[in-house]
């Protein structure tokens, strides 16, 4: 009947969500009989859940949807260049480089469909070959792999992105999280790969530039 040793927040949530084993559930239930404070938490958790789950799904209007789909840029840098520049994602000599890349990607567009699961890299490689290495500036700034804006993809690792940044910082590599949640590191691909060697694969894309 003692109310000290309250179950943790996580345990109370698990109780409400029915995620506890039978024994643990029984322990919490006995505590709740004796503890008004925790019983109040449980009631609020249930009431909050009920209110949220009664919220109806919301629908975009047909007009909004059509407008959004129509506004998607072409997926090559010519059209999206202003986006990249606005977000500060391109670094050195962006206009000349991207204009050159845009022209090349445009000409290779019809070749899409090689069964490759990494189209970005494939296109950029095609671009490099077609250009005969004529775009040294691009290679210098991005490594020419996935050269649209973010740099070269090193690996996709488990998140959260902030932890990836910290892991890189611990190895002396500066990095930041961009707006889509990718990590952009300043350094060589080899260093970054080594720094993240122990990290399992996951959703966070790590780029170097």
């Amino acid at each position, binding site marked *: 009947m003692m109310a000290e040793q309250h179950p943790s927040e*996580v345990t109370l949530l698990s109780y409400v969500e029915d995620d506890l084993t039978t024994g643990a559930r029984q322990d919490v239930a006995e505590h709740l009989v004796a503890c008004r404070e925790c019983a109040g938490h449980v009631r609020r958790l249930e009431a*909050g859940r009920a*209110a949220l789950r009664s919220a109806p799904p919301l629908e975009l209007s047909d007009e909004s949807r059509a407008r959004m789909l129509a506004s998607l840029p072409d997926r090559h840098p010519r059209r999206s260049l202003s986006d990249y520049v606005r977000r500060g994602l391109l670094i050195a000599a962006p206009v000349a480089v991207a204009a050159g890349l845009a022209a090349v990607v445009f000409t290779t567009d019809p070749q899409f469909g090689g069964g490759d699961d990494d189209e970005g890299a494939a296109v950029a490689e095609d671009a490099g070959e077609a250009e005969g290495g004529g775009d040294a500036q691009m290679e210098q700034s991005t490594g020419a792999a996935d050269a649209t804006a973010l740099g070269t993809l090193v690996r996709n690792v488990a998140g959260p992105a902030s932890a990836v940044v910290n892991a890189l910082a611990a190895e002396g590599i500066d990095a930041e999280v961009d707006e*889509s949640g990718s990590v952009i590191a300043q350094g060589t691909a080899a260093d970054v790969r080594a720094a993240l060697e122990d990290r399992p694969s996951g959703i966070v894309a790590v780029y170097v530039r």
Partner: protein
Amino acid sequence: MDPDEELVRRAKKGDRFAFERLVAEHEQRMYTLAARVLGSREDAADAVQEALVRAWLALPRFRGEARFSTWLYRIVVNTSHDLRPKRREAPTDELPEPADPRDRFAEQELSGELQRALNALDETYRAAVVLYDVLGCSYAEIAEMTGVAEGTVKSRIFRGRGELAERLGTAVQETESNE
């Protein structure tokens, strides 16, 4: 494994039709997420539009380690977050409810009491409860989307639901009325 895998593969190659079908599959949840987090239909439409552009451009780099939906909703969380400070400085867009009666979707206006209670929550709590209780995402998915540990997600759900219930005044009377 990921029900979207086939369409994602095609969309990555630049197939807009495949991308539109992915959008059709997820737009309701993307929009519901943004609207509940931002408290405004107009802002939500902007957030979803921005998210779709980012998703379309970033799709070639999506490797499929997480489900496509997790990746997509994470972008919506980010675009919604990015939109908030800007909108705060623009008072004309504040407090979008109640609906303009000329809006043909007025009948779908964000349900007043719940949305007001949601708006009053800390943004991180609000995102957590909307993702978990309204969209039905798992703790692990929410952790990936919001960049925090699962334990933090659970704590945010605990606090978000609790505060929400207090603001809605539903659970409180039962527990504290007979002091």
